C-alpha cells in the first residue's frame, strides 16, 4: 500500500536531526512540521523573512503581517526572528540551512530538479526554490511517484525547465525512498512502502537506479 501524504511527511521527518535549521516548501513538505519526534530542537525557516515558525494561530488571532512562504497565517515561537528577504536568502544561499524539503514535478537520475514551470501551460515561477536547492546543505524531494497520467516523475532527464542540476540528496515518494550516493551520483532505492514490490517500482520509474534495500 502506498504511503499517505502524512506518512511521506513522517518519513521525511526521520531525516531531520536535533538542532537542524530547516526550510519546508509548499504542499506535502509543510506537513513535516507536524511529524517531528518530540524532544527535538528544530527551527523552521520561511523565506519571506522568519526563522522560528509556530503553529497556525487560533481562530480570531490571525495577523496579516505574520505569514509563511505559502502565504498562510502562522505564529511566533519564543526564539523567532524576523529579517528582510535579502537577509533571508543570505541565510539560504550562504549555506546556513541544514535542510530543504520541497516538492517537484520531475527529478532526474542525476539529481536534477524541475518544479516551477510547464511551458505553455502553467507558469507559477520558482519563488525561492532555485536558491534553496543551490544553497541548502541537504535537499530532500517529497513527491508522488508518478503523475496523475501515470507518467514517471523520476526520469532519465528532466523535460521541464530545471530548478537546479545535481542538487538532490533524497527522494521520498508515496511508494519508495531513494538516496543519491553523492550530489550528481548514483540513485539508489533504499526502502519500499508496505506492499510495494521492486517490480512495481521498476515499472513506474524511468530513471536508472541501483537497488540497495536493507
Amino acid at each position: 500500500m502506498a504511503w499517505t501524504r502524512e506518512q511521506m511527511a513522517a518519513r521525511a521527518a526521520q531525516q531531520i536531526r536535533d538542532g537542524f535549521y530547516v526550510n519546508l516548501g509548499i504542499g506535502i513538505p509543510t506537513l513535516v512540521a507536524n511529524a517531528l519526534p518530540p524532544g527535538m530542537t528544530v527551527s523552521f525557516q520561511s523565506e519571506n523573512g522568519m526563522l522560528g515558525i509556530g503553529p497556525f494561530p487560533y481562530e480570531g488571532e490571525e495577523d496579516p503581517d505574520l505569514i509563511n512562504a505559502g502565504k498562510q497565517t502562522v505564529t511566533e515561537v519564543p526564539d523567532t526572528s524576523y529579517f528582510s528577504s535579502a537577509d533571508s536568502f543570505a541565510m539560504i544561499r550562504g549555506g546556513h540551512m541544514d535542510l530543504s524539503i520541497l516538492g517537484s514535478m520531475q527529478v532526474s537520475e542525476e539529481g536534477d530538479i524541475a518544479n516551477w514551470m510547464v511551458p505553455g501551460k502553467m507558469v507559477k515561477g520558482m519563488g525561492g526554490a532555485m536558491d534553496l536547492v543551490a544553497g541548502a546543505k541537504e535537499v530532500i524531494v517529497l513527491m508522488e511517484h508518478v503523475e496523475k497520467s501515470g507518467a514517471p516523475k523520476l526520469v532519465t532527464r528532466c523535460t521541464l525547465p530545471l530548478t537546479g542540476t545535481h542538487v538532490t540528496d533524497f527522494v521520498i515518494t508515496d511508494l519508495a525512498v531513494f538516496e543519491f550516493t553523492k550530489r550528481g551520483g548514483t540513485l539508489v532505492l533504499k526502502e519500499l512502502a508496505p506492499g510495494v514490490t521492486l517490480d512495481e517500482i521498476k515499472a513506474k520509474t524511468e530513471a536508472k537506479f541501483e537497488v540497495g534495500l536493507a
Partner: protein
Amino acid sequence: MRHKVYPDAKSALEGIVSDGMTIMAGGFGLCGIAENLIAAIRDLGPKHLTVVSNNCGVDDFGLGILLANGQIKKMISSYVGENKLFEQLYLAGDLELEFNPQGTLAERIRAGGAGIAGFYTKTGYGTIIAEGKPTREFNGQHYVLETGLVADLSIIKAWKADKEGNLVYRKTARNFNPMMATAGKITVVEVEELVEVGELDPENIHTPGIYVDRIVVEVGAEKRIEKVTTRKREEVK
C-alpha cells in the same frame, strides 16, 4: 529643513509617476504592500510600467489592480502562482515577464541600492535563468553573474516612521521593503503610524531616513489575508 510628509498617497505621487517608468513595489503576496500608493498609481493612470515585485497580488487586490487596469507592460517577479489573470495575460503574450529566483531578486535590489553593479551566485546555474549570462568557476563551483537592479520609484510599506523617514517594519511585512527603499531614485513610504523625530529607538531603525523621500500615513487599508489558516482551541493540550 526637510519636508517629507505628504497629506495623502495621491499628492505624494503626483508629478513623479510617468508612462514607461520602472516601479519597485514592496510586499510578499499581500503582506507588507503599500495599498494606498498602489490605488493612487491606478488613479493617476501611468501606463507601460515595468514593475519589480516578488508577486503581483491577486486578481482583485494588491498589484493585481494595476494589471487588471492594463497599466503594466512588464513584471520582474519570482512567483505569480496566486494570480490567474497574470498567468492568462502572460500565456497570451500580452504581458512581459522576467522571472528571477527570489534570492537573486532580493540580492539584485540590495546590490542596486548599494551601488554594486553585479555579483556571482550559484543560484540558477545550469537552468534557463543562466542563459546568456556570464558564468565563472570559483573553487570548483559554478556561479552566474547577476546584475544590480534600480528603479525610478519605490513604493514601500512600513509600520512606523518618524518625520525624517526612519522606518520600522512589522513581522513578515518587512520582506522586500528594506532593499527596495534603497534602490528607488525616489522612495515613497506608506506607514501605519507617523511619530515625531526622537520617538523611535535609534538602535531599532530598520531603514534609515536617508533612503526615504516622501511619507504618507495609510488610510483605510484592508490588510487582506491571502490564506487564513487557523487551529481550533480544543486542540490545546
